[in-house]
């Protein structure tokens, strides 16, 4: 059987031959560092800089990288080694990847490949490889619809934070599908370029709800003449105060008795009390003070509910990416070496309608016969394929390349 890697490189070369000229370079590209993963060796080539778009385009046509990146940072000397680049500033970036989000669908996307031979399979890795006897495996991230949807809804949540809380104009918030498991969000505005790591950490903590103290949002017991009373934030409060109130409101509206009882740290009797009194609590939310409305629901209970509401509303991001002011990010319209899909930039208002498995397909032409070792069900475009096990199938090019990139299939002669 032919070497699938050579075939992938050939297809990537064709892609760049036809599309390199359409790849937009980022703003101030002369001040950015570019990085490439070399397809044949799998190593990263860094510290490249280009003085004109055509040099960049000629370069990718020449080397056919498997992955292409540019720095979120601006440097005086982008092509020098790290210590000598002289950092000028950096865009604000976020990475949402379902590595960092727990989803209920692990079974649908667990996949392994043997590190010594070309064996692969769905589900948990075996203890020894049936083909070569090896015991080292690589877990492969399968593209799972549930995970992709989750990542998208996290991205939408993040955009809401960036627009409503941080006040960035929506047109300055760029969303990119990474070509694989998630989204990057990229804010490019002069005033944020100088933010240091500590400041970026604060932004990360904000969107993740880290370090949030409920008492600083007004939830606390106060002494009144009539005795102790609990007060708390209002539904319309700005920032996290309002989010907390709305989040707790949602829990009370949507949780059934069972769900309330399952909350760790809330007594079963109190859970029933919340359930029985929900009408009354909800009514006081418009007219009075819900936090103090029911005798028997104490501060500890409210704090527990707030905790859950914070988790529900926070965004899961890869914190390191945002704090690292030298980070490289993928470039729109370049390919992702692990899928053969392309990176796609999406205006934030169209994200809702974006379908990564349709809109990021790069290889639209032709079909290819491949021998599939094993594959979960997967979708490319409108079609659903698989599951497959040890069979030869003729597939549209994008689906075939996806399997080859995942090392789930081999070429037939």
């Amino acid at each position: 059987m032919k070497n699938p890697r050579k075939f992938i490189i050939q297809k990537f070369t064709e892609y760049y031959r036809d599309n390199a000229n359409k790849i937009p370079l980022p703003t101030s590209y002369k001040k950015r560092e570019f990085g490439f993963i070399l397809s044949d060796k799998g190593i990263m080539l860094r510290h490249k800089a280009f003085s004109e778009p055509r040099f960049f385009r000629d370069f990718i046509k020449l080397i056919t990288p498997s992955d292409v990146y540019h720095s979120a940072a601006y440097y005086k000397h982008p092509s020098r080694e790290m210590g000598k680049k002289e950092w000028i500033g950096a865009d604000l970036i976020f990475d949402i990847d379902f590595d960092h989000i727990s989803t209920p669908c692990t079974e649908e996307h667990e996949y392994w490949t043997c590190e010594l031979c070309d064996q692969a399979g769905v589900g948990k890795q075996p203890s020894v490889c049936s083909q070569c006897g090896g015991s080292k495996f690589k877990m492969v991230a399968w593209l799972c619809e549930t995970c992709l949807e989750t990542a998208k809804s996290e991205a939408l949540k993040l955009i809401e934070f960036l627009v409503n809380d941080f006040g960035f104009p929506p047109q300055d918030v760029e969303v990119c599908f990474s070509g694989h498991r998630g989204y990057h969000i990229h804010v490019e505005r002069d005033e944020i370029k100088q933010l240091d790591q500590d400041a970026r950490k604060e932004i990360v903590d904000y969107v993740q709800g880290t370090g949030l103290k409920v008492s600083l949002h007004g939830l606390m017991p106060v002494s009144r003449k009539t005795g102790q009373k609990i007060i708390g934030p209002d539904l319309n409060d700005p920032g996290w105060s309002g989010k907390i109130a709305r989040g707790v409101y949602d829990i009370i509206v949507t949780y059934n008795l069972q769900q309330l009882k399952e909350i760790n740290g809330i007594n079963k009797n109190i859970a029933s009390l919340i359930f029985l009194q929900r009408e009354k609590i909800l009514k006081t939310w418009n007219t009075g003070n819900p936090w103090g409305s029911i005798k028997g629901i104490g501060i500890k209970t409210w704090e527990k509910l707030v905790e859950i509401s914070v988790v529900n509303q926070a965004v899961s991001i890869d914190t390191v990416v945002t704090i690292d002011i030298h980070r490289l990010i993928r470039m729109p319209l370049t390919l992702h070496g692990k899928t053969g899909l392309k990176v796609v930039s999406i205006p934030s208002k169209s994200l809702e309608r974006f379908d990564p498995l349709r809109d990021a397909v790069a290889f639209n032409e032709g079909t290819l016969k491949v021998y599939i070792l094993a594959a979960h069900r997967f979708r490319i475009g409108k079609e659903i394929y698989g599951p497959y096990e040890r069979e030869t199938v003729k597939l549209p090019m994008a689906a075939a390349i996806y399997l080859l990139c995942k090392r789930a299939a081999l070429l037939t002669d």
Partner: protein
Amino acid sequence: MLVSKEDFAKYPFIIGAVDYVKRLDLKTDELSQPEFSAIVTRAEARIEEALLDGIIKWESRLGYDIELLSYPVAIIFVSNIADNYLKKRYALAESKRIQALLKEDVDEKLTEIAISIFGWKVKRLPLEIYQPFDFSLSFIDYLRNAPNFHDFRWKLVNKHLINGEVFLQKDEFSRLISEEVRKHIENTINTSPKVELNPLLLQRIEHIKQRLNIRKERIRIKEQPRNIISAAYPPCIKNLYDYLISGQHISHVGRFTLTSFLLNAGMKIEKLIKLYTPISDFNQRLTRYQVEHIAGVRGSGTKYTPPSCETLKTHRLCPGPDELCSRIKHPLAYYRRKIRMIKK
């Protein structure tokens, strides 16, 4: 708005005050003349107050002119002495004086300083609607200084943030301005041109230096474990250490570097925590957690070593290598070699 002599004396760093002083066109030579002795005495007192109390008093009784003019003179003295600890301590003490004054001053003056001197985006809020908040400040400007205050109250996640603006009460806003003032003054000291001083003034400076040395010695005895040889610290660590004991902000990487260095040099955890906590806003529990984590008694159990010179350079923590630096690649290597050199 900020035009009275009283304002100038209170906030001597504002443009109006600086211009006013410039127009008087005083020469440093003239300062030793008797009619200026009150000014020089007050300048010396400012520095002394900074050293002893950590805050400079607002001395309006002496008259606004003396109070105002003693400020640039004190800056000349401090920059002439060129001691890192003194520079930082002085800037901090001035900023504390200013913070106290701002809190009592009218709102417009706070916004004017923030806008015209520092270019911040800030608005006064109509009180009736936004109670208990007085100002709304762009989160970018907020984050310039707030992360330096290590307390949950200052975390952005605990603030009201809407449409890019952080809602603040007056005392919080005063604190943020004063932190910017501190940096501003430090910068003024560091960039002020070197001036020749006549013998009379040099005498005054000698006197301040003595006070400074007593003060530094006292800190050393109090806070420095004996088995650690501070004279052997590499320049990067010396710098961070100076920052720490003068209560300045240190970045995450900086704190990690200093902590792991001192632990590796043999400082005891308790000592190290004590070193961190008396200072400004360091939160005792957080500090303990971080120090113990780096020491490896928590979490993964690995004891961390400080980053290499190369990494420190990328994080701009290397103040520029000295001669010994050129022969090593790691601050701990510097330390070990230097100790050997000292002991010889």
